[in-house]
Each structure stands twice: as structure tokens, then as C-alpha cells.
């Protein structure tokens, strides 16, 4: 599978219809439809072992429920058409009160069908929650209103909103929250799991395709819940190692820019390794320049967009904790230059 760029993308009106038809006719096997343009948020385009396991159960259940749907609705429509009162039906139809054998039958048949749904369900419940494989990369995910903190404890890397993973290696996520309940969800990489304050949740999966996958907080977490997006870059082992290498390399500090950063008040919330800025309230900005997006996936990491963000964060992410510091244009320009140099 080739890496796909998530955005921007043209609106293809045919894709929706195609996927509808595919769903109705071919069930969960959308891949067979031969779509060139796969939505990156899709729950039925698996790109990891976890999402594939879920997909397998879904297909099984889909076929059973689709079959039941067709049979039962046809029976209903048939009964309505066949037994509508016709001219001449002036009397009373046979007053049938029931038929016990039939009752037993339509109790047992659904029970049998449920058996076939329950087996893969239970198997998969245990399969996806067993201990992860030994060859894995540990990641601490901390949800904040409204951004994601990612820490690689074994690699000494802290970053935000963009997760980098090597393909074929298990990612073992430890999920926690700094404030309210959030839910980690990258549809193509697997199901969601809540980030609860006060207790740690686990979620692991092994990405099997290189690409960029989009996610979104899935539990209502306040004003900008909709704006709490994330990106996962699944890379080849070499690219991932290069990324790790780059993240661990100290950034060259531009002392003028750093001064602007410190004197503007940014350091009250943000940390930049190797500088006096060590606050842990907002995202760690040590390697800010290496990220493709800012503001939890709302904006591209481009000078004009970053400037707009610094000018008035609230207008981009309603409710955001980052205040409008009323920075001068001059100050914004130097901050933009400095932040983008952090790579």
C-alpha cells in the first residue's frame, strides 16, 4: 500500500454512492470495490492487526444481520400486500391466536444465529486485549483539553498531536488524561479506547501499512472536542529511525528568538528542551518545526497559519487554554521564525 496524503483532497461525489452500494451489496468487503481514493478516517479500511480483527468480526455480523434484515422486511412487506383487506372480505378472518411450534422455532433460530456472532466476538475480545508482543514500542498518550501529548519513554521523546510509528512493530499505548475523559481513535488503526483521569488504559496494535492516518478525540471533552484531532505517521523502520534521531538531536537555539519566546510569556505553559522554558501545561515545543500541523491538526505548520494562531488562538480553536497575548506583528514574526527553526 502506498502512503497517502490525508489533505487536501477533492470531493468525489461518486465515492459515497459507491461505498453505499458496496456496503449494501458486498457487505464489509469494500476493498473489493476497487476504490482508488480511500478515506483516511474509514473504519472499514484496516491498516493494523487490531482494525483487521475488528473488521473480521464486523463482516461476519454484517452478513448475518443483512440476511435477517432482508428476510424479515420481505416477510413484513409480503404480509401487508398479501393480506390487505379486499372488496368482499366483509367477514372476519380466522381468529388464529398463535402456534407454539412456530414460537419455539423463532426463538431458537435467532439464538443459533447469535451463537455464530458470539463466537468471533468473544474470541476477538480476548485476542485484542491479551498481552502485546515483546517487540514493541511503548508510548504514553496523555489527553488534554484539546490536544494530545505523546511520550516515548524508552526513546526520551516528547511530542504533541503527531505520532510517529514504525510499520510492523507493535505500538503499546498507555492512555491517561490530564483533565477530563478523552478517547483515542484512529479509525484505520483500530478501535477507540478512553483516556480516563486517574487510571491508565491500554491499547495496542501493529500497523501493517505505511501511511498517514487521521484520528479524532471520540469522547465529548468540552468546547473544542471537535478540534482535538491527531495524525499518525506509520513509516518504514529507516524513516522512523531517522525521525527518532532528529527528535533527539538538540535544536540549534537562536538566542534572539528564544528571548522573544521567553519575554512574551510563552514559557509559562510550554517547554523547549535545553532552554529555561520547562512548563508542562501546553504542548512541548522542542521540535515544533518538525511537525506538519499545528493546533492539534487544525492548521498546517506554515508561517502565515502559525502567525494567525499566535495572533488569536481562540478564533481558531474555541475555548483554547492558550490566551491571546496581544503580540505585536513584529513579535509574531520573530516567534514564527524561531518556532519553525526548532527542528
Amino acid at each position: 500500500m502506498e502512503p497517502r496524503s490525508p489533505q487536501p483532497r477533492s470531493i468525489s461525489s461518486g465515492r459515497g454512492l459507491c461505498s453505499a452500494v458496496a456496503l449494501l451489496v458486498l457487505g464489509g468487503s469494500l476493498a473489493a470495490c476497487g476504490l482508488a481514493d480511500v478515506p483516511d478516517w474509514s473504519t472499514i479500511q484496516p491498516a493494523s492487526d487490531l482494525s483487521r480483527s475488528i473488521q473480521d468480526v464486523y463482516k461476519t455480523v454484517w452478513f448475518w444481520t443483512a440476511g435477517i434484515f432482508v428476510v424479515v422486511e420481505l416477510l413484513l412487506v409480503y404480509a401487508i400486500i398479501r393480506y390487505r383487506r379486499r372488496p368482499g372480505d366483509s367477514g372476519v378472518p380466522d381468529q388464529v391466536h398463535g402456534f407454539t411450534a412456530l414460537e419455539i422455532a423463532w426463538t431458537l433460530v435467532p439464538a443459533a444465529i447469535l451463537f455464530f456472532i458470539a463466537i468471533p466476538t468473544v474470541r476477538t475480545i480476548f485476542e485484542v486485549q491479551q498481552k502485546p508482543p515483546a517487540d514493541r514500542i511503548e508510548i504514553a498518550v496523555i489527553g488534554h483539553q484539546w490536544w494530545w501529548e505523546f511520550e516515548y519513554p524508552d526513546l526520551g521523546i516528547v511530542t504533541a498531536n503527531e505520532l510517529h510509528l514504525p510499520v510492523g512493530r507493535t505500538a503499546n499505548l498507555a492512555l491517561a488524561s490530564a483533565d477530563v475523559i478523552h478517547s483515542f481513535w484512529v479509525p484505520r488503526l483500530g478501535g477507540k479506547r478512553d483516556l480516563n483521569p486517574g487510571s491508565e488504559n491500554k491499547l495496542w496494535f501493529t500497523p501493517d501499512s505505511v501511511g498517514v492516518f487521521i484520528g479524532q478525540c471520540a469522547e465529548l471533552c468540552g468546547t473544542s472536542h471537535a478540534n482535538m484531532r491527531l495524525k499518525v505517521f506509520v513509516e518504514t523502520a529507516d524513516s522512523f529511525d531517522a525521525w527518532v534521531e532528529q527528535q533527539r538531536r538538540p535544536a540549534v537555539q537562536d538566542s534572539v528568538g528564544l528571548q522573544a519566546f521567553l519575554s512574551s510569556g510563552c514559557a509559562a505553559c510550554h517547554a523547549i528542551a535545553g532552554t529555561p522554558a520547562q512548563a508542562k501545561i501546553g504542548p512541548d515545543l522542542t521540535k515544533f518545526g518538525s511537525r506538519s500541523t499545528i493546533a492539534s491538526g487544525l492548521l498546517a505548520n506554515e508561517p502565515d497559519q502559525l502567525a494567525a494562531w499566535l495572533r488569536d488562538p481562540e478564533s481558531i480553536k474555541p475555548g483554547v487554554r492558550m490566551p491571546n497575548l496581544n503580540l505585536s506583528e513584529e513579535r509574531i514574526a520573530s516567534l514564527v521564525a524561531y518556532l519553525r527553526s526548532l527542528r
Partner: protein
Amino acid sequence: MNAAPTDTVQHESIYSGSIASWLTTVDHKRIGVMYGATALLYFIVGGVEALIIRLQLAAPEGAVVGADAYNQLFTMHGTTMVFLVLMPLAAAMFNFLIPLMVGARDVAFPRLNAFSFWTWFFGAILLNLAFFVNQAPDAGWFGYANLTSKQYNPGLGIDFWVLSLQIMGIASIASGVNFTVTALNMRAPGMSLMRMPLFVWMALIVQILMLLAFPAITVGLIFLLFDRFFDTNFYVAAAGGTPVLWQHLFWIFGHPEVYILILPSFGIVSEILPTFSRKPLFGAPFVIFSGILIGFLGFGVWSHHMFTTGLGPIADTAFSLGTMLIAIPTGVKIFNWIGTLWGGHIVMRTPLYFAVGMVALFIVGGLSGIMHASAPIDLQQHDSYFVVAHLHYVFFGGTVFGLLAGVCYWWPKVTGRMLGEGLGKLSFWVMFLGMNLTFFPMHFLGLDGMARRIYTYPAGAGWEQWNLMATVGAFVLTLGVLLFYVNLVRSLRSGEAATPDPWDGATLEWSMSSPPPEYNFAVIPTVNSARPLWLHKYGPTRDISTHTREDGTPPQPDHPVERIELPSPSHWPLVAAAGLTLAGGGTMVGLLPVLAGVAVLVVAVYWWAFQPLERPGNPIFEPARGTE
């Protein structure tokens, strides 16, 4: 005016009278009408909220409302539809119909019934007052802790939400007690439990579910109130607590609540399909027992709303399998409904359209429910638009279509006038189309990864066309609902007069005039069959279940044949409800209104308790002159 008593109905309309007579009424029929009218008004409120939501989502980066306003809208939409529309619309029918169907002259506790209504009424107003202080609740109808804590939600919105839910919860408990006793203990002679109409059966199960489910949310809300008002630690992780406690308490209430919302529709459909098929309900005992089983199992599956919470594989397995089990009794019901239609002479009238529509749409919601009963699948579908599609097929397709079927079916009995058939069928088809156009695409949105409760979404995710379709559908649906309302208004103004038994029904409510006299039954009937009136009309030969008596229950005489004394109107239930709401809502203001409210409540309760039900001036009906 003063016509001879023998050739005119001696009672004027049970609905005529001053406003004061409505405020003090203890007549279950009038209270039912007030529930229904208020619920239909709130249906417009909740619908407008939904339309704004759909407008916002019609295109990416919508700018109709902002983030906070959007959160308030879906919170109020959910809370309004559940507590201010679906439950009270069902309560309207319980009120009006349970006494009529079991052969009683009123409910067991007429003044408690009025108290329930007014408490709910004031609680609903209190909830909506939040809009007027511009602080509507915004944490979702499920109000997950700790987003509802003072720290993360400092405004008054959550307080309005908590207090009004508590107040309406008291109304639910009170009416739960009342209708349980009415259905169990006020049945006409001969009406054994297995002869009780299906609607009353499902209503009885709903009452028991309310009695057992509401305490859980009451306790959850008490903890939340204490956390917000007194800085306790129930949902505070730093103190060792967990917000997940709320999820358990809420869903121990919340899942039975789903059945509280759907079982009335099951009951309605189980009345309408037999009437219009001109056959008895197929496998009635199985339909009854499957209803009981659904209610019972409903208490054991709450954590299927929490598969993503991280409860571990054992709990996931137990709750997955438990949830799947519920599919069996639900399927039994659907098959029995089809069995009822099978071999009938189906009369194609508007109530039947809505009832069959309910069955057809509920099947969709039921089957998608089986999908996320499977915990692994739910990991993807949870909190996505797939679940939004599912729940609207259950609540709109199932509950609303069922309740509207009931409105069409019993409208002649309630108002004494027929609804327009043409307009009724047109409104059905427009709603049916709009419903599917709105909610079916949401399945695809969910599968395409669109999360719930997001006020904005980026372009290019492949969601545009489905969202646009859903928004168009919402307006089609609105048109259908408007047509339905126009039909109601036209019927009230100029509808054809209804006969006592316009549908050739089988149950007791069709044995009296439309609308019924104030005392319901001139003679308390004796019941020998599950279909007493049918047995009277068509005899036992066709009715193979009844071999006992020669004839069924005849229609009611026009005049009382015995002295009938009804309970007096009382304003104390209204005053007590006002005091309760003042005491509850007052907690947001200060101690003074709370004390004032408690004082009013105490005085009202004592006056009420010591005011005899039967006292000088209460309605008395004597046998009319010229009759036996």
C-alpha cells in the same frame, strides 16, 4: 340546552371548563391530554434544536453556530427528546388509557397523578430556563463526569440540568408507583393478568423499569450535586475517586431507560396490528413474556455503553453476550407482529401505516444494535455517527413512529373527532422518507469515521455528501411532522365526529362514547376475554381462546346506572409541585428560595393529605331520569 335526558348525551365535553379547572383537575383523561399537548410542543422545541444541528453540519466548517452553542444544542436536543417528549408522550397515553383499558374510573391516586404531571411540567420549564440565562447545559444528555464538574463546567448550565432531571425523576417515580398500582390492582372483575391488554402490560413493565432505574441516576445526580455544591470527591480522580462511577450509575439507569422509551411503542403496535388485521395478537403470551424478559435483561447490560471505557475482556464478554440475548425476545415480538398480520384482513388506515412503519424501521435499529453489541465492533462504532444512526432508528423509527401510531389510533377516543386519512397517510410517507433520508446516511458517516458531537469537520474526509443528504432529509422529516400537526389541528377544528368504536376495536376503551364521560364507565364491566368488546360483537365462535362465556363485554350505557362519585379537583398537587421546583431550582440562587419552596411543599402536602378525596362539592353523577 335542556333537552330530554333520554335522547342526548347528558354530559358536556369533559374538556370544557375554566383554566382553573385544568390546573386543579385530577381526571386522568385531562392530565393525559395535558401531558400529550405539552410533549407535542416540546417535540417542536427539540426538533428545532435538531434542525440547527443539521444546518451546522450540512457542509464542512459550518458557521451557523459556534462550538459552545453546538454543544448546548445537542445536549438539550437529547435531554428534551428523552425527558420532555418521548417519556411524557408515552405518559399521556398511560394516563388516558390505562384506566379505560383495565375498566377503572380513574387511576389509583388521582391527586398524586396531578402532582406527577405538574412536577414534570415545572421541571421541564426549569430545564429550558437555562436558555434564558444563556447557560444551557453542554455536557451531553449523558453528562459524563468529570466534564460536568465545577472545575471544567463552572457555569449554571449543569446545575439546571441536574436539578431539573432530579425534579422530573421524582415525577417519574410518583407516576411509576401510581400506574403500577392502577394496572395491578384496579382491573375490572374477570380481567386476569393474561387478559390485560398488551398496551397495559408494556406500560406496567415500563413503570417497574422506571421505579428501579431512576434511583440509580438519582444517586448519580446527588453525587454530582454534592461535588458541585459542597466540593465532595465522588468523581474526583485526584482524591481516589473515578469519573467512571458516573458512567455505571448513569447507564444502570440509561439502558433500562432505552426500554422505558421503546416498550410503550411495542405495546401500541401490539394493539394496533390486531385491530386493523381483525385478528387477535399472534402469540400474545409470548409477546408479554418477551416484554418482561427485555425489561429484566435490560438491567444486566448497562456496560455495553462502556466497551471503550476499558473494563477488561471478562466484563466485555459478559456484557456483549447479555446484550445479544436481548435480540431473542425482541425478535420474538417482531415475528409475532408479522404473524398477527399474516392471514388477516388488513384495513389500511393511518394508524396501521405508522405501526407497520415502526416495525420496519425498528428492525433496522435492532440489527445495527446487534452489531455494536459485539464489543470489538463497538470499539469502532462507539461515539461515531453509526451509533447516531442506530439510536435514531430505535427512537425515531421505533418510539416516535410507535407513539404517533398511538396518537392516530386513539385520537378519536381522546377528542371525539377523526383525523383526516389523506393527510395522515401523506404525513406518514413524508416522515418515512425524511426519516430514512436523514438517518440512513449516518451509518455511512460512522463507518467513514465521523465522530459524534463534533460541531465542525474538515473538508475532504468523504463526509460531505452524506451530511448534506442528512440535512435535506431533516427538512423533509420536518415537513412530515408539520403535516401531521396540521392534521391534528384540522381535526380539532372541523374533523368528522368519531363514533365510540371507529376502528372496530377489541378492548374496553372502545365500549364508551368518544370522548369518554368523566366517570369513564357507567357500569364497571365484567371481562371474560382478552378481547372483551370483540367477543361481544362477533361472539365466541370465532374466538377459539374463549370457551367460557356466551357473550363478551357490551358497550357502555349512555347514562350511569348507579351513583358515581368522583374525586374533587384539588390545587394542592399543583402547589406542592411548585414548592418542590422552587426548592430545587432555588439551590442555584440561595437559601431563601429553598426554604420558601420547602415550606410551600410541606404545607401543600399536609393540606393534600388531610383533604378528603370525597367531600362536598365533588362531581356526582346520578342515574339519569327515565333510565333504569
